[in-house]
């Protein structure tokens, strides 16, 4: 979806790309560092950006959460020799769709007007959040 957003906007020069790396302090769960990169200081509010990353972290944590629902899903899947994965959409996939929608929303409302673009981490193997900074040809509204 972020690709289509990129195609829709008139081609702008990419000034820089910032990569928000993963935060492994809690293990291998998917979390991103909330540290505000210095390259974005001129473009966006620190609170705003950290709020976006925090929200993404929450969504990913929910996707990977070990709760009673995931246990039931897992046991049911095991009993059917995991063939349910062919028919059912897994919890993680549902969350990924939610995340994609959230990123699209954020891009439309907050980042695109500032000449920034967030790339969904799933397109980068859940390794980084890629923030593309476009050259600022005009003042934002």
């Amino acid at each position, binding site marked *: 979806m972020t690709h289509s957003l990129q195609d829709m906007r008139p081609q702008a020069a990419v000034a820089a790309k910032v990569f928000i790396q993963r935060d492994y302090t809690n293990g*291998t769960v998917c979390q991103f560092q909330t540290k505000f990169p210095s390259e974005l200081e001129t473009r966006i509010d620190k609170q705003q950006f950290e709020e976006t990353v925090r929200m993404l972290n929450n969504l990913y944590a929910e996707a990977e959460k070990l709760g009673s629902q995931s246990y039931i899903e*897992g046991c049911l899947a095991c009993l059917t020799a995991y063939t349910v994965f062919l028919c059912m959409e897994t919890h993680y996939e549902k969350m990924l769709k939610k995340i994609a929608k959230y990123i699209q929303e954020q891009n439309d409302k907050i980042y695109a007007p500032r000449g920034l673009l967030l790339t969904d981490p799933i397109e980068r193997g859940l390794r980084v959040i890629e923030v593309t900074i476009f*050259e600022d040809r005009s003042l934002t509204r």
Partner: protein
Amino acid sequence: MKNCEYQQIDPQALSTPTPTPPPHQGNEPEKKTEPKRPKRKWEVFPGKNRFYCDGRLIVARQSGVLPLTVGLILVTSGLFFIFDCPFLVKHLTSCIPVIGGVLFVFVIITLLQTSFTDPGILPRATPDEAADIEKQIDNTGNTSYRPPPRTKEVLINQQVVKLKYCFTCKMFRPPRTSHCSLCDNCVERFDHHCPWVGNCVGKRNYRFFYTFIVSLSFLTAFIFGCVTTHLALRAQGGKGLVFALQESPGSAVELVICFFSVWSILGLSGFHTYLVASNLTTNEDIKGSWSGKSGEDVTNPYSHKNIFINCCSVLCAPMPPSLIDRRGFLPADESAQTGGTDIELPTLATKSEINVCTQGTKGLLESAALPPLLSTSCPQGKPQTAHPCPDISPAVNSDPSPELSTGCGAHHRASSHRDASPPRHTKTRSKKCKRAALHISNPAFDAPVSPTSPDTGPGSKGRGHKGASFAPLH
């Protein structure tokens, strides 16, 4: 409404080729502005993998002894149903073929799922990412080229863990990720590369693998028990074992196969149960990452310190998505941006999809040229069927070795498989071609980000067939 006036044309957009009129087929479904069929990402995948069913199934390029595994299971189970079941149904109970059937189906399904599921391959870093990482490391202002330092330390649950830099994938490997030299991919939560299933075992297919070996232990033990009972019943009344074997020769074959495999498979299941309960991978266990060998107080930072929670988190956790998006289409401008090797790969990848025979022969010649890997003696204990592996390569093979009853014996890692493989490989070449042609009709076992389409499966599979066969014409 004021829109942002980004008027400068992206110079990269100018490099897209002007569309030429299509050669003969004018009704390709996804044709937009490009004359060629848009490529799917699996076609330019840089790792050593093979893809079937238009990217739905993924397997390592060296399929190891997967045909042997399937063959052994089919032969043993077939003999069981033909020779033993009729007798046992008559003399004992008709539950026996039912139980056997259920176990057999379980084993085959989980085996195929282990083999054809993406184990958790990490896509390689994009050029921008790689440049960013190198910039971060090399920001001392040193302009002379120097390879990035190999490790980065992070604190995970108050435990210091070193992350290594992968020169092939151009990124720092996440924790528990290892680069498999056989598949040339970084795999998340890398356990080992299993030649018996012809694939790596990693985060996404570990549960399939575990279910496979557990159900296989049950199946083997069950068949062994039934065959023994069958022969014992036949030999009753003073007739003797030889008479019983003569009456039912298939049982003799089953007895031999099951006797030798039940120990190794039970051992392997026991070993992996231990790994699951302590949330360890084979790789970590063999390297002794958390056993405190170096004298420091190290504990496994990923363990939940509770056997039940560990088991649940490994086996019942939400199924992670495939990160490599095999069936996604390549954006037109990115196909020009991918590295030089990737441009050559499409022809190779599509060719290998169709012509598995030549690929395999080439691989055979390559592997024959490799020097034999070192022969470390195996630990004497039976459960430890995985070989100790010095850090030449992180690819650790689990080796149930049904034929050899002496634990690991002199069975080296991949070397023996490669050296002993010529007869096997030539035999299995024809099987492989048939299999590629048959296109095993299991739809995607794992759903990539775009929703799977079991309902459009046959249709797109048909398209995939056509795609594979038309590819060389480009």
